[in-house]
């Protein structure tokens, strides 16, 4: 197919015509999206619907989409369930999540500043090494890390295994991916800012704390958000390091509840799952922009 045009005006006219011809496709796209999005939303709807049913109704055939009677009390039952101990699980998860967020954000920012703003010998070599470490999967170091924590625990006179500490302690030593993310951001800030502050007698740590950190708030919130999500989500970490049920996190507690009950009380299980998901959804709607920007930068390497 070829388009013959004599001048620019003709070009534009043809372009407009082609665009008009695309209108019906738009409707096709719309219909396709409605169908696909219904499919993506259906599991959520089903989960909420089940969480409001009586145990009998979860087993009725054919299943009802709208629960009748609707039992919001299922949520109270779950919150007060002795086998689940929701308040304790939430507390443990929050301890790990908050400490991880504080530790990762602070330490990663410090290290990223060193890599981005200080031209010292070996900077790029060490940075390259750090990037390479991102390739190492957690299962590879899972076993020896266990031994390292046991060793530290035995020699520091405070046991680490069987406490929540192994889950948040490494966060205070920076995480490669977040250091990378923050370094890229710090590099975009004009060097003149640091130079002017240096002339005014500001120290390196002063520049970091008073100039760079306030400017880096968007990038720091991306790091904080994703660290929180990671901690809230983590299952393998708690599974390896936590033995005592009094230290279970939500992820571990929910899984234990399911495996002990053989997955029969689906209404309660779904209510508990909804409760675990809700904070994440709220966080998403509060920080939607940060989320999308954060993920988008992930792919920008």
């Amino acid at each position, binding site marked *: 197919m070829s388009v013959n045009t004599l001048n620019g005006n003709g070009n534009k006219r043809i372009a407009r015509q082609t665009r008009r011809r695309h209108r019906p496709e738009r409707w096709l796209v719309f219909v396709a999206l409605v169908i696909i999005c219904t499919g993506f939303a259906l599991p959520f709807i089903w989960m909420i619907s089940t969480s409001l049913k009586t145990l009998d109704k979860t087993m009725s055939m054919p299943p009802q989409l709208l629960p009748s009677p609707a039992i919001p009390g299922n949520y109270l039952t779950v919150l007060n369930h002795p086998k689940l101990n929701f308040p304790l699980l939430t507390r443990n998860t929050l301890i790990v999540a908050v400490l991880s967020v504080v530790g990762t954000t602070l330490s990663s920012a410090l290290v990223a500043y060193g890599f981005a703003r200080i031209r010292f010998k070996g900077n790029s070599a060490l940075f390259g090494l750090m990037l390479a470490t991102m390739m190492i*999967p957690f*299962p590879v170091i*899972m076993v020896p*890390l266990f031994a*390292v924590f046991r060793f530290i625990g035995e020699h520091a006179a405070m046991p680490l295994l069987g406490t929540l500490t192994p889950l948040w302690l*490494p966060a205070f030593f920076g995480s490669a991916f977040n250091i990378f993310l923050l370094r890229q951001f710090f590099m975009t800030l004009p060097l003149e800012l640091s130079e002017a502050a240096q002339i005014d007698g500001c120290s390196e740590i002063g520049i970091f704390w008073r100039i760079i950190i306030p400017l880096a708030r968007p990038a720091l919130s991306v790091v904080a958000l994703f660290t929180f999500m990671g901690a809230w989500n983590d299952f393998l970490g708690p599974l390896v390091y936590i033995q005592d049920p009094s230290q279970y996190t939500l*992820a571990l507690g*929910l899984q234990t509840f399911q495996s002990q009950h053989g997955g029969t009380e689906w209404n309660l*299980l779904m209510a508990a799952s909804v409760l675990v998901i809700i904070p994440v959804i709220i966080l998403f709607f509060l920080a939607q922009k940060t989320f999308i920007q954060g993920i988008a930068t992930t792919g920008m390497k």
Partner: protein
Amino acid sequence: MSPLERRRLGSGLVFISPWLIGFTVFLLIPVCLSFYYSFCDYSLLQTPAFIGLDNYRELLGDPVFWQSLRNTGVYASLALPAGMLVSLGLALLLNQKVVGQSIFRTLIFLPSLVPTVASAMLWLWLFNAKLGLINTLLDMPPFAATIQGINVALGAVHLPQIQTPISWLTDPAWALPALAFMSLWGVGQTVVIYLAGLQDVPGELIESAELDGANAWQRLWNVTLPMLSPVIFFNMIMAIIGALQEFSIPYIMTGGGPARATYFFTMYLYDNAFTYLKMGYASAMAWIQLLIVLLLTGLSFWLSKRWVHYQSK
């Protein structure tokens, strides 16, 4: 080294010291220990005893090791291409300016935020053979007719037919495909990465292709996809590494069953380490996993030279 250089080195090292310490204690030492353990008989209870290559030799003759590797490979070869097609297709659809675009985007993205354990609970319920929503839907006329059609086609080429209701997680033939299907629900983050990549495709390029008479398919194949190839490449590597580490979902949903049909590499590693306390054996597996990751990443980088197009070059 001049005084300025020395001062810079000093403050540089101070700033990166958290990472230097963390790298040494939580990565370098564990990696070296893991390498050493992989040549040892080590049960965590006594000191490691050096046994040379025995762990690796035993692994090569261990049918469970091979099965876990094969399961992981089969899962990856199902979930990866499917995930790639679905996420790319969704990104292209969501990139069109249609009414309700932001609602559609949110609906596709939200499932990827659901914590792994909650998602496992939900899909256990959806996949439930007797009461699950999926089998209920498959009983409905349009889907039932489709399955019947597929069965006629399968019968024509003398293949076993689909028996309904499908025991998604308890039938060894269906368990891995079921988990791969479930993984499609979480493509939201990949879609967002593709959408960001699509913003970087210059509009002029597409318009000029349009003026040259390229149809929608040609524009996609010859302009958009080549421009998007670095992002596709990045997502592919992340997906491969992710599949090799798959653990939580099968651990929670099937425990590796039925008949080890969903027993993944990382699950066998975990069981060796923390169930059978064979830390040396597990470490040998860890090193094999690391080598596979490095090999696959290297291979994808090498292949990428043939099809990834970087805009700056």
